């Protein structure tokens, strides 16, 4: 029973996160205080939202390297909108950021779908293009806290039942994605397309279109994250979240989402992101040199992928009766 539970990737991850927390608690008990754990979750919220989008894309055997750049562009546009029209209601700005993100995702998706360009090439290209666009849009200028309206900055911090809106939003996204992935044809199509694209065609699933939707989804979530990032850190410039695309992918990999497509779950993505979030937040607290953070995340990624591969590895068929009996 326990052995069987341990084979379940998600449960393994929960155990890993708990062990990690316990180790940290040994040196710094206050870290595991409920208040602080909520803070860590809040700090990881954006990564979680992004990892959910990346998960959908990776499931379809694609990859989205442009998510962080998309986030930066949408965040910048949201900030500019707010700076230019301080009276604009915040929900409208969020919608605009999500729409723009979705549009950018559609560009990726269209290139992958209609022109059959490999996803890694498409998003490598759009990654630089999106960042470049921010530069062209702003001439490299920053938008600073004092240029943003109070409401714009306040929303993610707003306290609802003791938890900030940012956390609530990420929880909402987790629930929505859970429903989408497990109970809608589109969600199942993500799995099918990544698991066996050839067979998906025979099943009447349009592989390209499904990938297109995966990119729309990841783009939209990146757009939402763009607003959240900019309002949370109260600053927008060309390089925000630079290199974050790798953190997003790392979260997915740690969460057991197979880079080869077709395998993975919402729970995995969330746990993978949390695992990284805990490490990131714990290092400054337990006084490990901030310079060690990079090496530690690298090691964790390698261990995670090795563990996941072990779990995924095909068990040898047992055709010998004797062996079966054991």
């Amino acid at each position, binding site marked *: 029973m326990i052995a069987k539970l341990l084979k379940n990737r998600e449960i393994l991850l929960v155990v890993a996160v708990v062990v990690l927390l316990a180790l940290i608690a040994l040196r*710094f008990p*206050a*870290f595991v205080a409920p208040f*602080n754990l909520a*803070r860590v979750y809040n*700090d990881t919220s954006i990564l979680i939202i992004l990892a959910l989008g990346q998960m959908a894309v990776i499931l379809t055997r694609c990859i989205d390297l442009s998510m962080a750049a998309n986030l930066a562009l949408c965040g910048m546009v949201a900030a500019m909108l707010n700076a230019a029209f301080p009276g604009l209601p915040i929900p409208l700005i969020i919608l605009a950021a999500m729409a723009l993100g979705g549009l950018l995702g559609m560009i990726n998706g269209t290139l992958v779908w209609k022109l059959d360009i490999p996803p890694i090439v498409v998003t490598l290209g759009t990654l630089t293009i999106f960042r470049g666009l921010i*530069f062209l849009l*702003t*001439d*490299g*200028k*920053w938008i*600073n*806290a*004092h240029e943003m309206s109070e409401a714009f900055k306040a929303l993610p*911090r707003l306290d609802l039942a003791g938890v900030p809106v940012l956390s609530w939003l990420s929880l909402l996204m987790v629930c929505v994605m859970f429903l989408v992935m497990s109970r809608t044809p589109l969600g199942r199509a993500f799995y099918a397309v990544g698991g066996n694209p050839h067979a998906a065609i025979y099943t009447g699933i349009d592989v390209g279109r499904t990938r297109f939707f995966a990119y729309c989804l990841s783009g939209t979530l990146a757009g939402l994250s763009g607003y959240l*990032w900019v309002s949370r*850190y*109260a*600053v927008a*410039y*060309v*390089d*925000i*979240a*630079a290199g974050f695309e790798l953190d997003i992918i790392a979260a997915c990999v740690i969460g057991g989402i197979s880079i080869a497509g077709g395998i993975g779950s919402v729970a995995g993505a969330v746990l993978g992101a949390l695992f990284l979030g805990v490490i*990131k*937040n714990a*290092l*400054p*607290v337990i*006084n490990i040199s*901030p*310079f060690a953070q990079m090496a530690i995340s690298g090691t964790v990624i390698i261990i995670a992928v090795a563990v996941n591969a072990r779990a995924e590895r095909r068990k040898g068929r047992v055709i010998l009766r004797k062996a079966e009996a054991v």
Partner: protein
Amino acid sequence: ENKKIALVVKALGIGFFEAANKGAQEAAKELGDVEIIYTGPTSTTAEGQIEVINSLIAQKVDAIAVSANDTDALVPALKKAMDRGIKVISWDSGVAKEGRLMHLNPSSSPLIGNMIIKLAADNLPEGGDVAVLSASATATNQNTWIAEMKKVQGNYKGINVVATVYGDDLADKSYRETQGLIQSHPNLKAIIAPTSVGIVAAAQAVTDAGKIGQINVTGLGLPSEMAGHVKSGASKSFAIWNPIDLGYSATMIAYDLIGGAEAKPGAELKMGRMGTVKLDDNNEGAMADPFVYDASNVEEFAKIF
């Protein structure tokens, strides 16, 4: 024939350097026969600056004034520039001696080191724990200032520097590092961030943690970026030299060198309305004292830079 002076910055788009460019343009206008090429890489890397410098050499500019991302890495490229007759100076963030004719410090490092701890101490008559949030691990000047600050720490009774963390000049990392500081040092009274990215992120983190009034954020920042935080009380005061003056002075010095002035220890170079700068044994000179901004004057300067 216009003289071409290139103002090479750490990265494009940073408000501080944009302001320096304003100063350079002002100097160009004043001089009449100068064309400013304002350029730099998009992220703060030495390799990017070298590519930029190579293309400036190819364009045969008359002078290069650079704020370096790396003290040593630019030296070979800048040496090549000087070999081809280009006058090279560094400003703000310096280049090793072999790589430039002179270096213009915005202020002197001891003055800055003293200033940042003084800003913290002035608001802590009883003393207390303070922490430093530094910038990118590869920036050259922050760490000199912190070293200078530590030298004079003894003059401020009761002020304990409990930690130094690095925000890498990234908003999110600086924010998280500040959260870590607040967490692990419950008695923290002030955060010194001698970096314009870090000070903003730290002020935001302190605000979000509800610690306004308990923790004072200070250091070096831009008025336009800090105005809000001064108003909210997260930062009582901070300092910075005037980047417009800095760009202006660098251009003036470069022009002076093109005109035949020689940069050697003890020499005095002309900086237009800023007067003259006297070079020390390292061919370095300081422009002026840092200037303190607080609730009384920040709004006014926020409009400028």
